[in-house]
């Protein structure tokens, strides 16, 4: 440490710059510390619990072994990645619907006052009902195949995109609309070239929240009757008191969720380059 400090001192940096450097290093170290802390706590918890109640909280090595075993001896002929892909496929189909119908519906009730007045109460009531409450009805109507699961995911994630798109389009800044007026924009041009582009950041907020909502709902749906998917792994672990399997599932959920968040953010930057702060 002293070596590093002396190095910094010799390179003619002001006190403020040194402080800034130190802060930079601190910000890089902090996330590493938190992960290490979590791992340490996990070790501690699993050891103590094992002494007290025998099998309770699995150790990291047990979870690691279970994860490996999931590849050597797959559950229902599918390893962890295949289960994750099955879950992803379900939310993929649901999100494809959300992002087409949901965005169109959001534009409809965000931009046009009459449809907004007509649909708003229905929509507000619909989104107040938790998606899992639909499970009995959907199961009764459609059984337990793929379609009902996707439907539940749609019911659970549609509202978040519609709400965001609606918010964006109902609050288009009048200064942009004035430009359209001065240039004689037709109503269609005003919608397509001014209102929708100016709402793109709100639309993307909807894309992000609907993605994370879909990922949560699909796991819940899978835990209630499925023979594939990460949610199924967790309920299988619960049924056979296989806690390492449960933790494997949970960690997979966390990792995939984080990847989804990063991917959607990346796409947003690609499509809306102007939202980047400055060069």
């Amino acid at each position, binding site marked *: 440490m002293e070596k590093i400090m002396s190095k910094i001192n010799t390179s003619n940096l002001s006190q403020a710059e040194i402080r800034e450097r130190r802060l930079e290093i601190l910000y890089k170290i902090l996330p590493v510390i938190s992960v290490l802390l979590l791992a340490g706590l996990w070790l501690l918890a699993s050891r103590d619990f094992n002494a007290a109640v025998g099998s309770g909280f699995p150790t990291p090595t047990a979870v690691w072994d279970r994860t490996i075993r999931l590849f050597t001896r797959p559950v229902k002929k599918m390893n962890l990645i295949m289960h994750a892909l099955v879950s992803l496929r379900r939310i993929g189909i649901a999100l494809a619907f959300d992002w087409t119908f949901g965005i169109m519906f959001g534009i409809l009730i965000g931009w046009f006052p009459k449809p907004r007045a007509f649909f708003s109460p229905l929509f507000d009531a619909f989104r107040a009902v938790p998606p899992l409450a639909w499970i009995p009805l959907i199961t009764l109507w459609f059984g337990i195949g793929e379609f009902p699961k996707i439907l539940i995911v749609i019911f659970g994630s549609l509202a978040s995109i519609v709400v965001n798109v609606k918010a964006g389009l109902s609050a288009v800044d009048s*200064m*942009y609309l*004035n*430009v*359209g*007026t*001065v*240039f*004689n*924009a*037709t109503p269609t*041009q005003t919608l397509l*070239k*001014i209102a929708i*582009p*100016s709402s*793109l950041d709100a639309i993307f907020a909807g894309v992000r929240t609907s993605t994370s909502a879909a990922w949560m709902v699909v796991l819940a749906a899978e835990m209630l009757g499925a023979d594939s998917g990460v949610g199924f792994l967790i309920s299988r672990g619960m049924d056979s008191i296989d806690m390492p399997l449960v933790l494997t599932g949970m960690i997979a959920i966390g990792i995939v969720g984080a990847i989804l968040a990063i991917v959607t953010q990346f796409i947003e930057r690609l499509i*809306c*380059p*102007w939202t980047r*702060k*400055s*060069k």
Partner: protein
Amino acid sequence: MSMDKKKQVILSLKNISQSFVVKDEVKPAVENVSLDVYDNEFLVVLGPGHCGKTVLMNVIAGIEKPIEGQIFLKGEEIHGNDRRIGMVFQSLNLMPWRTVMGNVEFGLELAGMEKKKRRAIAQKYIDLVRLTGFEHSYPHELSGGMKQRVGIARAYTNNPEILIMDEPFGALDAQTRYAMEEEVLRIWKEEKRTVIFVTNNIEEAVFLADRVILLSNCPAKVKQVYDLSPLGRPRDLMDPEFLRFRTEISDNTDLAL
């Protein structure tokens, strides 16, 4: 002959009144304003504070409908916005999702002109406002003065006969402001249009104007019209004649509240 042409009325306001609503209270913003704008002149509308000027410009541009009065463009009454009237906005109103080129060509794009043609025209005005090389930059990457140049180029590209500039330099620092005033005169000389320039800055008004229309404080009424053509161009801020006009207008201007 040239004198005759100069004095041709292109735009005529007759008894325009308009009000605005603040906290459910209707307040008069513009009261019974009548004025003539001559072809190709640089007209400055000077008024104190934040009352009425933007409202009056919005009425001329067709963004707002006046509660009373008529507007005649080349002798014909117009209702609402007319494509022969362009506007440079006070708050710029550049679209952050469009590049400089995207913003400048916007009016022609809405008019349905094909891409190659409108790009060529837009490029001409981007060059005119000296933003060559920044076509693909986004507004957030530009300085305040450069953004104003984009606003001016955007208005010019649509080829309006009358160009409204609503306090375009209000947000700029003093130095950039002086530079942009010179720029606006240069552009106006190269591409002659009728300009209606709004400001609350007396020096700016005397520096730019062929004529100054002095408005009163709330509600805006025409207080006096000054003909500044005796000053000639280019103008010197320290010239005694310049200072005389400046003092005269200054003494006659209402205090902004």
